[in-house]
């Protein structure tokens, strides 16, 4: 017996379907269905996953594409796609319906249905005699030969009369009948979850929905014998007839690239070649030694591009970066394909081939049939211009962003399921807050009954089970960060386009994984704060030193020893990628001295390698303390560049192929599993294959298991070498600028804030420690941005008005525009500008008028004087009578922080010390003199708290005093015992043991924590808490 299920919704019919497309495919296949149609409501978002599942496991069942629609509340039908034209038609209908409405909604119009010429239609009558008669007539008129009446049997009350009604309609209007299931879940056991998501959708707990829920679990995929007993044979056979007419498969989807990229008279290959050659002449004006080798590589790369038909892809990106170049927007290409000579010539990237000759040849992997991977980072402040260019050039019809599927995570799942089960929100909040502690000792499930979330064991079991099921369910589609899909013809012929939440933005219904599965190309247009900062730094160097710089200029100079010495000293606050606490503690040990060392440095200091225990072996071997040994030549070829320790994602993939015999396709699956293993534990499936593959090739079990453990450690965090290479460029450039043009460096950085790891306060501290003078915000000297101000023969940094909290750019322009030559001399002059009073207050608070009034109290007192606002009196400048108040040092300090988030006066710690409020302690610069394992006390402002999930229960706290930063390690037991100080302190005194590791890296292991915040209450430096 054969049967095809033609009406089935997955969980991409958000909050209606209760099973993943993959689950539906597997189950239907298991039940021996001939075919399954995934027909989500006005959407094809789920079909790619169903298709991938079918391909991956070679399922026998056929997949049919379709969609379910409701029109005017009483016409419900399913449209199925027999061939590609019908599919395009369906996408068009969905696009029109979705574009008419807000995000998440759709509105069908009669025209849409009338214009449907190719799809097969299954009508689902609603039971109302009048309406059904009306629609029957309408449908047979518009869809002759393509119309069926679909009857569902759900064993509900009065189903008999409904079936009679359908039979009557079928006979009266001569419409053939097909059986269909109206499936919402793959198995009956999913019923509770289906009802929970209904509850979530309605916002009412399950227990109160009563008859609005499904009355039973018949809307699941049912076994064939059941189907046989429910429907007459004729109807079952009709389903297979329909299925047989459908032969469309997503593999048929390919799209054309826009033609305007290629000028007339050229073929794509010719044009690409010309651009590359043109670029080559510029890039290699001074012929390098291996010039012919380079030419050979270019030829090889171009051949490969042509073979795979990727010319358009490269030309599209070339066009975009040319636009950026014209507009003087800094950009940087990144990714495996980016680090090719072709891309260097096309100016997509600045990685000089002489440097990348050591990189992997992973340019385009033909054997893996993988599309080229190029991300382009643009200055974050100007990325929007690039996006607008793309929209303008290709039009809204031909380009859209890829989607991101937002799924339920643990917290949101717990909250929603809890609400659906009737648990009070306050309780849920309390529970979530209480388990989200850094102490993750106890499993959340064990704590449920304890914390009063469920009244008994069976309730708690249900809660746990439902939350686990809901995790990973899609909630809605939102727009991807910057992945654009661009096509020659209208996009909606390929995939439906819907509205995103942002106005004027449209999104396709598939996400980047779906695009990859179908081998469709996308262009990633991303934003990077450091590029903005670098451009600003270049601009400052040009203005103040007359020197024009570019990224390529700097990298061409190769490895400057001065710069690397600075890096090895870990003097890298503000430098791209190597400024974090973890990086800085690793730099003196790894001691990078050339470009490739930087590439390793960036990739190795991440949770992945740390967790997989790669760092220590690497260091030991690099220092000669441990021999490098390779079990075979193949492994050596892969791992010798990193001394036998796998650090890069590419190495793992390559190992899988050469050492364990994975095919290109399997290696690709492994890569994908690594990227998302936290979400679905797919990685474990590869364990036996990898280990057995390696053992088969003669590697011993221990080695194989070690490699697998390292792979697991990689997880999502393993960094591709190609990305690391691009980042290393920017790390080097920013370090170079910090070394040679420090004033420009800090100024450019602060003008691009927010970005990076450090706050302006910390950057200013670092600048001052480098002997750079920083001048306060001043109404007579500052502009909106921070500036470099000439002071005798050096430059100082003048803080800009942007640093004042509560002061707007508009107000700043007014202030500057009206500024007299000799500056403002009276507060009343400022009052006459049309600046809002609260903004003037902000200026006063920042003590920006210090050239006019002695202190901020005086300034404010003067500002409050309403008399001077009267026109007759504005020339009158009375001295304040009877007013004597002035702030003391601590008040000044507090307000500095409150108003500008930093201070240029004494550091709070220095101030407290000068006022005798602190007991004996060692300052940051003094730590070098203390011997290893001595017991000391340190005091500082808490500027960073990091609890990386990998380090078992340890928190790293950074304390800042007036001489620098101090690294403190707090173990879990210490944290628990002194919870108050640990959690609350903004100024912390730590007594503990000093530990000095190799390279001179110093930590304090905390013993006693004392909260000293009360000494400077109301301090407004908030530390950035990372997890």
């Amino acid at each position: 017996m054969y049967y095809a299920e033609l009406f089935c919704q997955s969980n991409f019919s958000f909050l209606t379907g209760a099973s993943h497309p993959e689950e539906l495919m597997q189950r239907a296949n298991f039940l021996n269905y001939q075919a399954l149609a995934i027909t989500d409501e006005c959407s094809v978002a789920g079909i790619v996953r169903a298709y991938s599942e079918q391909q991956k496991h070679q399922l026998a069942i056929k997949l049919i594409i379709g969609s379910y629609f409701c029109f005017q509340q009483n016409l419900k039908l399913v449209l199925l796609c027999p061939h590609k034209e019908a599919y395009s038609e369906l996408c068009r209908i969905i696009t029109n319906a979705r574009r008419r409405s807000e995000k998440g909604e759709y509105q069908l119009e009669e025209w849409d249905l009338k214009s449907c010429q190719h799809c097969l239609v299954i009508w689902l009558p609603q039971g109302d005699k009048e309406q059904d008669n009306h629609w029957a007539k309408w449908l047979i008129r518009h869809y002759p030969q393509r119309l069926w009446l679909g009857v569902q049997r759900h064993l509900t009350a009065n189903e008999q009369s409904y079936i009679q009604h359908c039979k009557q309609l079928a006979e009266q209007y001569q419409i053939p009948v097909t059986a269909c299931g109206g499936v919402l879940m793959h198995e009956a056991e999913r019923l509770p979850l289906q009802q929970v998501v209904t509850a979530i959708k309605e916002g009412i707990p399950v227990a109160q929905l009563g008859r609005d829920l499904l009355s039973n679990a018949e809307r699941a995929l049912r076994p064939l014998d059941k189907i046989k007993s429910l429907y007459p044979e004729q109807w079952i056979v009709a389903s297979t007839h329909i299925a047989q007419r459908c032969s469309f498969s997503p593999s048929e989807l390919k799209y054309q690239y826009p033609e305007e990229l290629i000028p007339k008279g050229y073929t794509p290959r010719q044009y690409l070649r010309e651009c590359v050659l043109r670029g080559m002449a510029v890039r290699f004006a001074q012929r390098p030694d291996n010039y012919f080798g380079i030419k050979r590589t270019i030829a090889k790369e171009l051949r490969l591009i042509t073979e795979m038909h990727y010319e358009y892809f490269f030309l599209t990106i070339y066009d975009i970066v040319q636009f950026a170049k014209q507009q003087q927007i800094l950009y940087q290409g990144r990714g495996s394909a980016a680090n090719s000579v072709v891309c260097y010539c096309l100016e997509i990237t600045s990685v000089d081939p002489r440097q990348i000759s050591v990189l992997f040849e992973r340019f385009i992997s033909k054997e893996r049939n993988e599309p080229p991977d190029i991300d382009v980072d643009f200055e974050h402040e100007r990325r929007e211009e690039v996006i607008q260019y793309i929209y303008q050039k290709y039009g809204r019809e031909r380009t859209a962003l890829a989607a991101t599927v937002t799924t339920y995570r643990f917290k949101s799942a717990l909250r929603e399921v809890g609400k659906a089960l009737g648990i009070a929100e306050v309780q849920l909040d309390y529970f979530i807050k209480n388990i989200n502690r850094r102490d993750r000792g106890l499993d959340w499930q064990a704590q449920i009954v304890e914390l009063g979330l469920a009244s008994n064991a069976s309730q708690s079991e249900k809660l746990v089970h439902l939350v686990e099921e809901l995790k990973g369910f899609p909630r809605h589609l939102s727009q991807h960060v910057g992945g654009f899909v661009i096509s020659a013809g209208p996009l909606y012929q390929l995939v439906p386009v819907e509205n995103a939440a942002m106005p004027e933005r449209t999104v396709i219904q598939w996400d980047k994984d779906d695009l990859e599965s179908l081998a469709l190309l996308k262009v990633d247009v991303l934003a990077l704060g450091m590029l903005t900062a670098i451009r600003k730094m270049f601009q400052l160097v040009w203005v103040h030193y007359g020197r024009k710089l570019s990224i390529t200029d700097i990298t061409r100079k190769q490895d400057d020893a001065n710069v690397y010495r600075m890096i090895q000293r870990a003097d890298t606050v503000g430098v791209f990628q190597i400024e974090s606490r973890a990086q800085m503690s690793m730099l003196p040990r790894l001691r990078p001295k050339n470009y490739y060392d930087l590439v390793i440095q960036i990739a190795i200091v991440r949770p992945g390698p740390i967790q997989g225990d790669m760092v220590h072996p690497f260091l030991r071997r690099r220092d000669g303390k441990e021999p490098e040994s390779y079990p075979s030549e193949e492994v050596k070829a892969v791992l010798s560049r990193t001394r036998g320790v796998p650090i890069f994602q590419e190495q793992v993939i390559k190992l899988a192929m050469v050492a364990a015999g994975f095919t290109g396709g399997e290696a690709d699956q492994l890569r994908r599993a690594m990227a998302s293993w936290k979400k679905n534990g797919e990685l474990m499936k590869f364990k036996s294959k990898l280990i057995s593959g390696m053992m088969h090739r003669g590697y011993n079990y221990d080695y194989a298991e070690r490699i697998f453990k390292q792979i697991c450690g990689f997880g999502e965090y393993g960094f591709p070498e190609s990305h690391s290479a691009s980042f290393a460029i920017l790390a080097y450039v920013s370090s170079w600028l910090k070394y040679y043009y420090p004033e420009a460096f800090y100024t450019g950085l602060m003008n691009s804030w927010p970005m990076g790891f450090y706050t302006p306060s910390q950057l200013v501290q670092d600048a001052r420690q480098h002997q750079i003078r920083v001048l306060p915000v001043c109404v007579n000297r500052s502009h909106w941005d921070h500036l470099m101000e000439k002071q005798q023969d050096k430059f100082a940094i003048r803080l800009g008005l942007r640093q004042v909290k509560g002061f707007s750019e508009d107000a700043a322009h007014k202030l500057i525009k009206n500024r007299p030559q000799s500056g403002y001399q009276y507060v009343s002059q400022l009052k006459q500008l049309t600046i809002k009073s609260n903004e003037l207050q902000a200026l006063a608070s920042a003590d920006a008028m210090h050239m006019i009034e002695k202190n901020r109290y005086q300034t404010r007192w003067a500002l409050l004087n309403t008399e001077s606002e009267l026109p007759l009196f504005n020339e009158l400048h009375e001295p304040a009578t009877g007013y004597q108040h002035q702030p003391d040092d601590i008040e000044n300090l507090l307000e500095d922080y409150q108003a500008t988030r930093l201070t240029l006066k004494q550091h709070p710690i220095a101030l407290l010390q000068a006022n005798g409020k602190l007991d004996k302690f060692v300052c940051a610069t003094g730590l070098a003199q203390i011997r290893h394992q001595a017991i000391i006390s340190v005091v500082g402002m808490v500027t960073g708290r990091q609890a990386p999930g990998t380090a078992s229960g340890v928190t790293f706290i950074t304390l800042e005093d007036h001489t620098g930063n101090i690294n403190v390690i707090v173990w879990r037991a210490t944290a628990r015992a002194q919870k108050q100080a640990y959690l609350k302190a903004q100024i912390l005194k730590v007594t503990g043991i000093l530990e000095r590791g190799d390279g001179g890296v110093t930590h304090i292991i905390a013993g006693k924590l004392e909260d000293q915040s009360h000494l400077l209450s109301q301090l407004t430096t908030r530390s950035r808490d990372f997890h």
Partner: protein
Amino acid sequence: MKKLWLYLHFPRLQMDCQFLAEQHRPVIILEAKDNSTRQLNELASKAGIKPGMGLGTACALCHDLHVEPYNSDLESNKIKQLCDSLYQLTSDICLFPPDGILLRIHNMLRFYDGLDNYWQAISGTLDKNNIRYHYATGATPFAAKILAQSQWDQVCEDRQQMHQQVLAQPLDASELPTRVVDNLKRVGIRLIGDLAAMPLSEIARRFDIQLVTYMGRLLGELHHSISFYHPEKRFNRRLELLYEIDNTQILLPPIQLLLQALEDFLLIRDQVTEELLLNLHQREQASLTVTVNSAEGEYRAKVWQTLMQLKLESVQLQSPVYALSLETGNTHLKTPRADDLFSGKKTALSQTQLIAMLQAKLGQELVQQISLHNDFRPEQVNRYQNAGKALSPLPKLQANRPFFLLSEPQKLNEKVRLLQGPERIVSGWWDDHAITRDYFIAHSAQGRWYWVFRTAEQRWFLHGVFA
């Protein structure tokens, strides 16, 4: 005569009312609007929790913390009760809800022969209530308030001393809006004294009239008119129990307290009442109202106590009671009764009154009405609920349902012919009353139309009969 005011401030009123007995666990009272700690007990304070602290931080500092939402009505009611008891001693009272009382005392002192005696009387009454309070005298209402809130805890008539004390208070403690106080602090003016020292012209040029008015009232330069409290006409008093009580007999002593207060109330007004409503506030359920009637108007606590006791014997508590409140029905002046005790009064009762009376006489559980519940499971649809509650409407179900539904499905023993069905119902997993049944309409040999069902184990039951 120079005016003198006394302010009473109750810093932890809700905590004292509800949790005074509980010293073994840390408790905080939470302001719901911003989840900040408003009141806390000793144990909570020892754990490091401070007023104003957020809920998350407080929980982190103290795992077994008990959190109670802030209830300003509770505090206001308590204040009113205190006013009533103070009204016996002093005439001019003004409420500052939720946690303050102001007394105008200069014209009362002569009745008490001096401030000390007066204060002894007042404090005596307050102490009986077992709540914490701070107090202070002042030359003006605002002065007394600011001093009491600063925990000065002194009564005196020395104007100089009181004035000095006021000047030393920080502006934060004043009634000025936070915005204004911040602006003043930002020009270095922090204390009342600082502000008072500034020339008025400078102040007037910079701040609005409200500041000037406040300072004037505070320092006595401007008149501050106060409207005084008038005791309520109707008696409605609430008593928070120190611990939860689930036995009606143990409720009697607290009820006694309420009845005594009632007697005082009625006595002063020379009133009586025929009906009392006692609300028992229960933790997990809606509050239970016990109505007690007396054939003729009564004010004596003793009499009501007996009636109440009898009534309570038939009351079953489903869950513990945490508070009681007592209110009267209509009250009227005591009139000498001229008519016959047995003449029998005719009163027209409304439906709710009838139900209340029946419930009072028979007990609430025996007076029920039928309601329909929205559920697929047939046995869950028909429910009884306590009479008097509103009925909720039911969504339509296009199905045939039997006229008679058996209260318990019975095993099907006879042969029947199945005619309509199955109607499959799989529901109820969420409350441990899950069912998996296929319902059919069947025809028996005797010609009866049955509603039967088959379970997953293939057993047949009879659930209803069609008319």
